[in-house]
């Protein structure tokens, strides 16, 4: 410390420009700009969000905007505003509780009720939203809604792979006249093959050529076959992605604009449905089962059933499908020899036999692939929906493995492969966690959380003002700036969600943020006691407190980062506000409060001040 002050005085001697307690103008500019931007970013949250019903042009509502309003008013639903832009209509309601009611009322006038969606619309004035600022996203515990955690069971997928290979091996043995070959399947895909010594090389060759993704190891007279680890991971990723895709499309039908479907961990899917109050309806949609079938395409509608394709054109197909989806073992998109996109399909042995029999008699004729989904409607009745997803011409006799070309681009082929795999639905999905938060409880949580924040902030402000008197109000300004920064950041960071534990983190930040100022002020008091002038004490106080502040905040930062990385949902919300709070409190406590003190007390050299 002695060396420090010597250096300073030297520096002052040689460089007269270095001023005590002086921040250059650009620093104030940075401070003011940051605060203004963050304040603007925090403002929309203050206004909150209004419940709304979104009507897309496809819904086919014949009413004019004024008629919509009068219809709603007739049913005692208060409409705040109605925005009509590019044929998209947004009906903004006064009362969130009437959102579902309004939707069902409008649904009676719509041709396609599925095109009506529940939405939230920021209540902030247009000029603010026009600048790109949005309110903070609220977690389910504050907003109300349903949350599911689904577990995708991968074991059956591996099992199917194993049994398909077992079938293929047996068929191979029959063709090659190998006697005494037996295949046993383990718990997952692993196979143990027992065979005569002579046939071993042949089997190995067959494996290397036809099934390169399998690992072959010999053990005495047996061969052990297992999928390579990379392939297992690949299969798992494909399966989970396929389920994610299915869930996304299904949830779109529920009409919730802000629904969240994301992968969690290895084989879990998290679904958050804000605003949904009835988990039963959502559950039946999530739990719908999908199947797939190949049909012979008929020339005329007589003796055939009509299934619509994607564009709505009816395709006449035979009543009985050639093959249904449960025989599909695998389907993957690829690029063929001619550079066109194709879908490679693998069937199990029975499916292969049927397909071979059928295709032998129908070369040159079209075959249709239909996708159907069973789900439960609002009344709990099973509903089936059918759609032709592709029509392809049979070029030759189809074995167990064949490819479909002419599906369009590579993306289209991928989509088809996804649907084909979805049709086989080999990975059962179970709901392992379900949480419902009623809208009243959500509102109550917000109210309680912010009441606690207001009380905590109030007490702290009063205490600091009384305890540190003239420096206290600096700390209070810094604390308020800290809150503005924190709310601004939460609104700005994409993916940041405010949860109830997150609010607890905010309240905790209020108590801990003043620590930075307290450390500095106590150092300043020490220096004053040593008989320094206020301006010098301020300079020394800030300098000597910095390393302590950094150390103290760093350890809390460690726990915040660990919590964010390992925790999930609400806990992540807590970690987020705690961590961000530390950063903003460093900024406001060291930088902003120094800027204020420099202006006000920076040139005060009196020695008999008390702080």
């Amino acid at each position, binding site marked *: 410390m002695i060396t420090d002050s010597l250096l300073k005085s030297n520096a002052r001697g040689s460089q007269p420009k270095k001023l005590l307690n002086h921040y250059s103008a650009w620093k104030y500019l940075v401070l003011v700009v940051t605060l203004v931007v963050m304040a603007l970013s925090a403002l929309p949250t203050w206004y909150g969000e209004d419940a709304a019903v979104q009507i897309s042009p496809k819904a086919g509502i014949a009413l004019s905007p004024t008629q919509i309003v009068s219809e709603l008013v007739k049913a005692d639903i208060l409409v705040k505003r109605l925005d009509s832009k590019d044929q998209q209509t947004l009906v903004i309601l006064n009362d969130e509780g009437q959102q579902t009611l309004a939707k069902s009322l409008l649904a009676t006038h719509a041709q396609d009720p599925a095109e009506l969606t529940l939405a939230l619309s920021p209540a902030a004035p247009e000029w603010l939203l026009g600048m790109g600022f949005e309110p903070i996203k609220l977690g389910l515990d504050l907003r109300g809604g349903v949350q599911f*955690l689904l577990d995708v069971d991968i074991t059956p997928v591996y099992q199917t792979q194993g049994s398909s290979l077992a079938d293929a091996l047996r068929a191979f043995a029959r063709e090659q006249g190998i006697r005494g070959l037996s295949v046993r399947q383990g718990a997952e895909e692993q196979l143990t093959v027992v065979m005569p010594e002579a046939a071993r090389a042949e089997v190995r060759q067959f494996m290397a050529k036809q099934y390169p993704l399998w690992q072959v190891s010999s053990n005495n007279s047996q061969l052990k076959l297992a999928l390579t680890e990379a392939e297992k991971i690949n299969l798992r990723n494909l399966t989970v992605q396929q389920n994610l895709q299915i869930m996304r499309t299904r949830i779109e039908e529920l009409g919730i604009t802000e629904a969240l479907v994301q992968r969690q961990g290895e084989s879990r899917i998290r679904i958050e449905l804000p605003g949904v109050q009835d988990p039963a309806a959502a559950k039946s949609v999530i739990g719908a089962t999908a199947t797939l079938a190949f049909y012979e395409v008929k020339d005329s509608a007589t003796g055939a059933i009509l299934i619509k394709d994607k564009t709505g054109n009816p395709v006449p197909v035979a009543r009985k499908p050639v093959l249904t989806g449960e025989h599909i073992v695998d389907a993957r998109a690829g690029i063929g020899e001619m550079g066109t996109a194709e879908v490679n399909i693998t069937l199990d042995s029975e499916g292969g036999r049927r397909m071979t029999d059928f295709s032998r008699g129908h070369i040159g004729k079209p075959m249709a692939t239909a996708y159907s989904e069973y789900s439960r409607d609002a009344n709990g009745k099973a509903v089936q929906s059918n759609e032709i997803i592709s029509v392809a011409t049979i070029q030759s006799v189809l074995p167990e493995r064949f490819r479909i070309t002419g599906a369009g681009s590579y993306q289209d082929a991928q989509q088809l492969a996804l649907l084909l795999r979805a049709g086989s639905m080999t990975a059962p999905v179970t709901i392992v966690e379900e949480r*419902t938060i009623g809208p009243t409880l959500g509102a109550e949580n917000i109210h309680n959380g912010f009441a606690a924040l207001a009380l905590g902030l109030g007490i702290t402000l009063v205490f600091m003002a009384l305890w540190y008197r003239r420096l206290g109000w600096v700390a209070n300004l810094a604390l308020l700036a800290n809150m503005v920064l924190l709310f601004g950041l939460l609104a700005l960071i994409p993916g940041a969600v405010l949860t109830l534990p997150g609010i607890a983190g905010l309240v*905790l930040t209020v*108590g801990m943020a003043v620590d930075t100022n307290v450390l500095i002020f106590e150092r300043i008091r020490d220096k004053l006691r040593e008989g320094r002038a206020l301006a010098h004490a301020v300079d020394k106080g800030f300098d000597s407190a910095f390393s302590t502040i950094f150390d103290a905040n760093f350890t809390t930062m460690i726990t915040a980062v660990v919590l964010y990385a390992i925790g*999930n949902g609400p806990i992540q919300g807590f970690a987020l506000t705690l961590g961000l709070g530390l950063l903003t409190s460093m900024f406001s406590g060291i930088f902003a409060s120094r800027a204020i003190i420099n202006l006000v007390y920076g040139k005060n050299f009196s020695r008999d001040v008390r702080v």
Partner: protein
Amino acid sequence: MINMKNATKWRYFSSAVSVILMIVSISVIAVKGLNWGLDFTGGVVSEIRIDSSISAKTLQPVLQQAYGQEVSLIAAGEPGRWVLRYAAPSAGQTMPELPEVLAGMNTQVEVLNTSIVGPQVGQELAEQGGLALLVAMLCILGYLSYRFEWRLASGAVFALVHDVIFVLAFFAATQMEFNLTVLAAVLAILGYSLNDSIIIADRIRELLAAKPKLAVKDINNQAIAATFARTMVTSGTTLMTISALWIMGGGPLEGFSIAMFIGVLTGTFSSISVGTSLPEWLGLSSEHYRVTPVAQTP
């Protein structure tokens, strides 16, 4: 009164109290165990609002019969508001919905929230929580050993363990529910307790370097005295805001606020008592922080 002369005695006395408390705490945890919340055990928790005239006595048998198991029933906040907890239905089985079960009771049933957690998920969350605690501890140890001499660091770590164990013991003794939010609080306490210890340790280090002649116990006393005002003010404001959370935050944050409150309280206490006494017993001396003269020529 505590003054500079008898401060060492007070410090040793409070350290002894800390150690005794810790032994008692560990035995409480061992004997009573924690009341693990739904997040860790799996099961169903529902919060409902019904007519306030219906008592637990009439409610219990109806629920028991409907679900075929013991249903735990806790009054929540206002009259007519209940928290129900029971085991999750096994795979393939469905349980009757609450409004159906209570249909015969002649009351409006409002389900405020429902959580269903599968046993597998609970197990995973518990493992994740343990992992988080472990990783946070290791990271902190790593940082401390880099920043401080090991004797000084050991005091902070001991204080830390002391605080966490005390909070856990409180939850074991009162059998309050230990859920994910309380776990988050325990992790936050890890950070907070260290905060206090580090600020005192920083001062000790500074004084050891500045006054190498002084006895370590006096240096410790001086360091505590120098940081005492700060310790009290920061702990005070933090405790005040936590109290605000406790009073206004409502049921979901109650466990969190209580855990934090106790954690901050013991955190302050332990950083002054064991946090400084342990390095002393381990033989901390100014040798470890002697200022090595900087070479004149680079």
